[in-house]
Structures are given as structure tokens and as C-alpha cells.
């Protein structure tokens, strides 16, 4: 009998009811995260990446809820419907999260050391002095110079990059098995982005943390991901190993994402401002009957507009939700 995967999500649906009907921001999502790997979720803004992450944390904001019979299992333990108490034990201890906005994700009135130490006191039962020493150690581990001094700094005394390092230190303080990083570099300068990505890879190597990396930047997928899931309007449209998906996208949407970042992918050159895919994501209230991407897709056929394609397994771990998948993925 093989052990349960570290994190296994099946049929996750996140949505809420409105007067105009139910709105689903995440639909029927399946996902497996294995120990020590990096899984990227990539998609445009609004595609449901953050809500997926928050669903795992049990922190989906009102009025959204996890609906339907979906399941989120951590080493086999069901988290959907778990008690608040149990979820609090898991958050910050087994699964941690780093957010997009380092400037506003640290509490301005507490020192960064206190904010790290607080987690250690809570989950590891450390005393004040030990927690502080461990916080200094964590600051050191995420590459903050003079950590004995910076431990008493307040967030406003630090740059965005430094604050994101603190967030990462805070998230990793209790050596969680899973780190969810929701666009951890989006709000940062380009040079700082690269440093933070390097730091994530470095801590993953040292601590063996599995990383669920959320991004809208296909360049980051190329740089960091083992496997990738492409989300469009709350649905998986493609998944597979990062290498294969980037080399031979089996969905026109992925192909468009990749085409928008050729420079960097092929040459490893500097990141440019990406040209956009024409058109906009359909409103979740008025989803087209067929493929959600069809209105923007250059290759869409009458069938695409009429009927939504199922997620089709192309090979082991490789799937695409496109009527042309087999043709494209070859």
C-alpha cells in the first residue's frame, strides 16, 4: 500500500449564491502535491488561484464557500469540514502561506521578530526567549543581514523585498511540509523578484518543503516548477510536467501564455512586460456554454463554442481540456 500523497485535492468547488444564480470561482479542481516538489498554478488574474490557496488553508473569504462534495486531504486527513481547532493546528505548522503583498501582510504595530516568534510560541510551545532566538535564526536563514538587530525592527523600517523575506521566515518557522506562495514576487522589483525566487528554491532544498507556487507569470513556471496546472476561469485547462507543458502546450490558452514570453523562456533573458492575450476572461455570471476560452481562441471551431471539452488525459500526468488537445500536444 502506497502512502497517501502529501496534499490531494479532489473535485474542489468554490463559489457563492447570488440572485442571478450560483457563481463558481473554482470548478472541479483536482490536484496532487508530493513531498518536496514545486507545483505551479498559473493563470490570469481572476482565474481562481488565490481562492484555491485559501480553500486549502480553510480561509475562503465570505461570501465564498467550498461547495459540493470536494475533498482536500493532507497526508490522508480530510480538511474540508474539519474543526476550526484542527485547522488552526495545521495552519502555520503543517501548511503555511506567503501572500502577494509583503507591504501590507505584516502587522505594522508589532516587530518582525515578535511576528515570527508568535508562531513558534503557538505551535512549538517555545518560551519567549527561545522563540526570539529561533526567530533570529529564521531571519538569518532567509538572508536578512544582522538578524540580531533587525529582529526588533518594525515592518515600516524594511523594504518590500526584506518584508517578503520576513514573511517567508514566518511561514517556514515551524518547518511546514507545505508552503503556499501566492504570487510572492508580483509586488516586487524585478531584481528583488529573482532574489526571492532564489530564496524559495534554496529553502526548499534545505528544509525539503513542498511548494505550491501561484503565479500569473509563465516565466516563473519555467524557472521554478516541477509540474504545472493552468487555470482558466476557475477550471483546469492543462496540466503536466513544467518542461513538457512549456515545450509543447496542449491547450491554445497555454500556448498563448507561452507565446507571450518567448524571450525569457528561450534565452533566459530579462523579464519583459508581456504582451497580452487579446480579449477578456468571460464573466463568471455569464459563462459561455462551450469552452470558456473559445471567445478568445484563434482556433475555436463551432464545436468549441457549443460544448465544453472535458479534461482529457494525454499521457501519465499530462492532460488538457481542449477538443484539439491530441493534435496540439503532439
Amino acid at each position: 500500500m502506497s502512502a497517501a500523497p502529501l496534499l490531494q485535492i479532489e473535485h474542489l468547488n468554490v463559489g457563492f449564491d447570488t440572485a442571478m444564480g450560483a457563481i463558481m470561482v473554482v470548478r472541479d479542481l483536482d490536484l496532487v502535491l508530493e513531498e518536496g516538489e514545486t507545483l505551479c498554478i498559473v493563470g490570469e488574474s481572476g482565474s481562481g488561484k488565490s481562492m484555491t490557496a485559501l480553500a486549502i488553508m480553510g480561509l475562503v473569504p465570505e461570501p465564498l464557500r467550498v461547495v459540493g462534495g470536494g475533498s482536500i486531504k493532507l497526508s490522508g486527513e480530510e480538511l474540508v469540514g474539519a474543526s476550526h481547532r484542527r485547522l488552526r493546528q495545521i495552519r502555520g505548522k503543517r501548511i503555511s502561506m506567503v501572500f502577494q503583498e509583503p507591504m501590507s501582510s505584516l502587522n505594522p504595530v508589532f516587530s518582525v521578530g515578535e511576528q515570527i516568534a508568535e508562531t513558534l510560541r503557538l505551535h512549538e510551545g517555545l518560551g519567549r526567549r527561545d522563540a526570539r532566538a529561533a526567530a533570529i535564526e529564521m531571519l538569518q536563514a532567509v538572508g536578512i543581514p544582522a538578524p540580531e538587530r533587525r529582529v526588533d525592527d518594525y515592518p515600516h523600517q524594511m523594504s518590500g523585498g526584506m518584508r517578503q523575506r520576513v514573511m517567508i521566515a514566518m511561514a517556514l518557522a515551524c518547518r511546514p511540509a507545505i508552503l503556499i506562495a501566492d504570487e510572492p514576487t508580483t509586488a516586487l522589483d524585478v531584481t528583488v523578484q529573482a532574489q526571492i525566487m532564489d530564496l524559495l528554491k534554496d529553502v526548499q532544498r534545505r528544509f525539503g518543503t513542498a511548494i505550491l507556487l501561484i503565479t500569473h507569470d509563465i516565466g516563473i513556471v519555467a524557472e521554478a516548477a516541477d509540474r504545472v496546472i493552468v487555470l482558466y476561469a476557475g477550471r483546469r485547462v492543462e496540466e503536466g510536467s513544467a518542461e513538457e507543458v512549456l515545450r509543447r502546450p496542449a491547450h491554445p490558452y497555454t500556448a498563448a501564455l507561452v507565446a507571450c514570453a518567448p524571450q525569457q523562456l528561450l534565452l533566459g533573458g530579462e523579464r519583459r512586460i508581456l504582451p497580452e492575450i487579446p480579449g477578456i476572461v468571460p464573466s463568471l455570471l455569464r459563462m459561455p456554454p462551450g469552452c470558456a476560452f473559445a471567445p478568445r481562441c484563434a482556433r475555436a471551431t463551432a464545436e468549441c463554442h457549443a460544448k465544453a471539452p472535458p479534461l482529457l488525459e494525454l499521457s501519465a500526468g499530462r492532460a488538457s481540456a481542449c477538443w484539439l488537445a491530441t493534435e496540439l500536444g503532439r
Partner: protein
Amino acid sequence: MRLANAILQRLCNAILLIAAVIVFNFALIHLAPGDPAQVIAGEMGGANAKILAEIRHAYGLDKPFLEQLWIYVSHVLRGDLGQSYYFNAPVAQLVAQRALATVLLVFSGLIAAIIFGTLLGVFSARRPRGALSHGVTILSLVGYSAPVFWTGILLILLFAAAVPIFPVEGMMDPARTGGGWIGRAIDIAHHLVLPATSLGIVYLAQYSRLARASMLDVLGADYIRAARAKGLSENVVVYKHALRNAILPVVTVAGLDLGRVFAGAVLVETVFDWPGMGRLAYGSILRRDSPTLLGILLFSAVIVIIGNLLTDLAYRLIDPRIRTSA
């Protein structure tokens, strides 16, 4: 060290400010219409021109303005606030007698309003669509629109006629004997309930609304979501991470109110026959008793300045962004 510096700097500012207040008030009263000599003469039962001149001479009112100002300032510096025209008693003594009553009234009303208002605001912010939250909205509407004397009269009607459990007049029971100082304190507290309540209700409305809005704002902040993501309990998230931030606007407004609340005190003191400074001030204006008025104004200025100092200090303790910058 930084804190000591900041306090020292603010104390220097405060002293300069008080000096300016003394000069400004004196000039203002001097410019006001009405002849104090007439008033004094009126107290003595009418007078002719000769007596008026004598009175002016006796009180130094015939001296040039700058000389009068100098005499006043040099006396104040020695702690002598002058002599009341009306009571014929030292102003310092008159003010001291009543200051305690007013400070007691004003602070108990305001502080209770701040504490209960903040708690109400926090509770209702945790359930923005709950019954308590709607209650706070209604309370703040009523509290805002109801004038303080009206609330006071209503309370008197209620607790003098309907359910007579609180005294509605004065600060102590003159008939009460014995019981020692504890008994007296209880007696004063008993008398304090209604006046402090009617003064406090207006502020309660204001603070509950302010705290609710501020707390709702803070609860939506990214760092609150991050605090939850750490596995902290809801109580720690609300009372440690959110409240400390949400309280900042409350502190700011409390500092401003410390100055304004004395104006409201006049009405409450009148309605409840509370022997405080508000009534003394009102009477002194009618009586053109300028030394007393000046003494009261000076005292109020000092209170406002102390209030601002305390606010500043509280802000520094709560918010490191201020502590570490200036």
C-alpha cells in the same frame, strides 16, 4: 531616550503655548464690552462717577493695557490668579474648589464612553450584520442627534420620577453624616452616575461608531488574513492583531474630545446642579467677573494641553511608526 526627548520637546511647546494662552485671553477679555467697575459697583448697590473712578483705581483698571497685562502675567507666574470681583475671594481657590468636580464628571463620562464605545464597536464589527451591529448604528444616530441637556432631563425624569434610584441633584448628600471617606466616595459616585451618563451617551455613540468602522477596516487588512494563516485563534487575531491597529483613530479623537468635553460639561452641570467649573464659567461671564473667567480659561487650557500630551504619549506607545520616526 527618544521618548524622553520627545516628551521634553512637547513640554517646552506646552509652556510656550500656555504663555500665549495667558496673554491672548487677557487681551480678549480686555476687548470685551462691559465695564467691570460698573459690575463691582452694582454689587455694592449702585455708584456715582467718583466711586467708579475709585474702584477703577483700586483694581488697577485705570492703568494702561500693557501695564495691566504685565501685572497680571507677573502675578500668574507667582501662582496668583487674582481676586474675583463677585465672590471677593482668590480665583485660584474658586477654581480649585470646582475643578475637581468638573474633572471627575468629565473624565468619568468620557473614559466610560471610550471604553464601552470601543468594546461595542469591536463586538459589532465581528458580526457586521448582527443585531448588535444594527443596535450600534441606531445608538449612534440617537446619541448624535440628542442634545446632552435633553438626555440629562430624560434621565432625571426617569430616575427621579419613575425609578428613583439615583440622586439627580448635587454632588453629595448634605444630610449625610459619618461613614468616613469611603462612605463619602460612594456617595459622590452615586451622585455621579446620572450626570456622567448623560455626558457620556453622546460620546458613547461616537466611539462605538468610530471603533466599529475602524475595526471593520482593519479586519479586512492583509495582515489580519496573514495572522489567521499562522493558525492564531480568532480572539488573538481580533484582540491582539486587529484591536491594536483599530484603536489608533479612537485615541486621536479622544485627544480632541478631552478639550471639547468641557463645553458639554456646562450644560450637564446646570441640569444636575453639579458644583463644577462649567457653571462657574457661565456665571462669571454673565457677571463680567473677568479674573475668575481668566482663571477658568487658563485651567481649561492646561487641561487641554495635558490631554494632548497624554494622547501623544499613548499614540507613541501603540504605534511604532510614530515612535521610531519623529
